[in-house]
């Protein structure tokens, strides 16, 4: 039915296009080609630079295709243990925080998708935090008081749950899981717990996929929490380590040699390679979330649409 309808619309579309509409459509396409270029070119430039000869990159000659294909940056980055330790920490934090985030969000969203005495108070309590927070300094002092300063647990706990995601999940449950299912389950004598685990969770894979992308990306890309709360750099996630590497744009050759823990005597060589290492570090750090997004993409569209419709 629906398909027939769209086919018909397309046919009429072709017949009825006026001159103005044609011009509009042409301009629209030109705009989109431009948009795609603006979005993709910077990313493309990073990729081709990461596999080009360091000299060519340093001179700014790499513009359209890689010049003198070289993997020296990637080879060098393999030896940079600080970054890989950060990588490992990031994986641990991201996986743990995402699991915790989905757990907290799904439970709360289920409660809020039902009617029960006091629901309004809980709703208010959660939404209020979106508009008013303690601010950086009071939060910092309170975290210090409860023993989360310089404690890697802060990376998992802080921001584990987001108001926005909770609202999306609640809307999803209200609109996508038929109320009759609950009524039937209630007649069968099943409790909220049984209903939640046997019916709601299996029917919520789409929204859980979306939540996992949201939470994982947020965690993976966070550099600031560690900068503020973790004095011990061994706990630092990759983004915080990366920030140090990228900030080293103008650092001395000695620093570079020390940072990469190698003993290359040729200072110029070290400097020149360290420049390409930056591009490689950007790629290595960005690939996991991008792949996650592309993998989840199919759920993503559906879930985001449903969740945000009444959001």
């Amino acid at each position, binding site marked *: 039915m629906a398909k027939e309808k769209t086919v018909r619309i397309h046919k009429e579309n072709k017949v*009825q296009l006026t001159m103005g509409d044609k011009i509009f459509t042409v301009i629209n396409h030109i705009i989109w080609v431009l948009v795609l270029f603006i979005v993709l070119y910077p990313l493309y430039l990073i990729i081709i630079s990461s596999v080009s000869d360091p000299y060519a990159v340093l001179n700014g000659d790499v513009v359209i295709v890689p010049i003198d294909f070289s993997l020296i940056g990637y080879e060098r980055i393999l030896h940079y243990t600080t970054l890989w330790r950060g990588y490992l920490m990031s994986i641990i934090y991201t996986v743990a925080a995402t699991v915790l985030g989905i757990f907290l969000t799904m439970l709360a969203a289920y409660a809020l998708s039902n009617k*029960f005495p006091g629901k309004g108070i809980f709703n208010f309590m959660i939404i209020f935090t979106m508009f008013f927070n303690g601010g950086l300094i009071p939060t910092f002092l309170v975290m210090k008081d409860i023993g989360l300063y310089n404690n890697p647990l802060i990376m998992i706990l802080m921001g584990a749950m987001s108001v926005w995601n909770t609202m999306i999940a609640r809307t999803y449950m209200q609109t996508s899981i038929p109320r009759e299912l609950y009524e039937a389950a209630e007649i069968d004598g099943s409790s909220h717990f049984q209903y939640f685990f046997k019916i709601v969770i299996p029917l919520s894979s789409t929204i859980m996929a979306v939540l996992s992308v949201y939470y994982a990306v947020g965690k993976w890309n966070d550099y600031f929490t560690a900068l503020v709360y973790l004095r011990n750099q061994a706990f630092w996630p990759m*983004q915080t380590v990366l920030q140090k590497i*990228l900030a080293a744009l103008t650092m001395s050759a000695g620093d570079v040699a020390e940072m990469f823990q190698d003993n290359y005597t040729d200072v110029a060589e070290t400097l020149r390679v360290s420049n390409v290492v930056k591009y490689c570090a950007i790629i290595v750090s960005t690939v996991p979330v991008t792949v996650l997004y592309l993998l989840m993409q199919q759920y993503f569209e559906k879930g985001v649409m449903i969740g945000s419709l009444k959001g």
Partner: protein
Amino acid sequence: MSNGTAVQSSTKKTKGQKLLQAIGRDWQLYIFILPAVVFYIVFHYLPLYGIQIAFKDYKAVQGITGSAWVGLKHFKTFFSSYLAKQLIVNTLAVNIFNLLWGFPLPVILSLLLNRLPSERFKKFNQTVIYIPHFVSTVVLAGMLYIFLDPNNGIVNKLIAFLGGTPQYFMAESKWFRTVFVASSIWQNTGWNTIIYIAALTGIDQEMYEAAKIDGATILQQIWYIDMPSIIPMAMMMLILNSGQVMAGNMQKTLLLQTSGNKGTSNTIGMYVYSMGLTQGQFSYTAAIGLFQNVVSFLMVITVNTISNKLSSISMF
């Protein structure tokens, strides 16, 4: 389960009894919400309680509750300092500039996307424009330093090619806001179309059909069908983002600030971060942060009220 049957058998009960029954029936829901409540108490309401240090002289030994009250001392110090005006102006300027671009562009982009005849091209574009959102702030800042390098960055190469003079984008105050806003546009415009595309997808196709039969052009369809359906969403976004005017993205500013661009990149958030965390002036910076939060909150309430009066669209 026995609770469930008890509820059904009762018909005449007082209000209090009804409430107790409802609680009895749904007590499990309180367990569902409990972890979230604990989370918000620890990570949001305890820090709210910690705000009191803005009115105290915080000493680590005496702690948050034990430190001595000093009233509005820190607020007075801040507002009488020569820096206050510059910080407020810098904060407002970059964020208003950001909102002026960041608010309409996703609306325009989603209207244009909705008008692409090919479903496949539409889908492809949608996938692509979300990608920058997944780039971290650290990487974004790194890319900016690389591309805007005065000697061999691609942007200055292009400027030189076109006959212009290379610019020190990252090291001059006059460029900070442009760099900040332009990179935000790149990173967020695509992602922020999601909510509008969702609204546009919900439009009944028969409306377009009817409009076409009446001879409506594409622009007329956008104006009379698409726009009305996304205005409520746009208003919601405006209400939500209005609080950002005084807040802004400090984590990004921290990465883009250089000794050269401090004239415009020194915002309230940056000042709180550096004076508070690196110099340990906790109470003073907590007061500044509180001022910032209160203004943001009032902005949201005000815009919400205005929107409610004008269009009866409101958040709460």
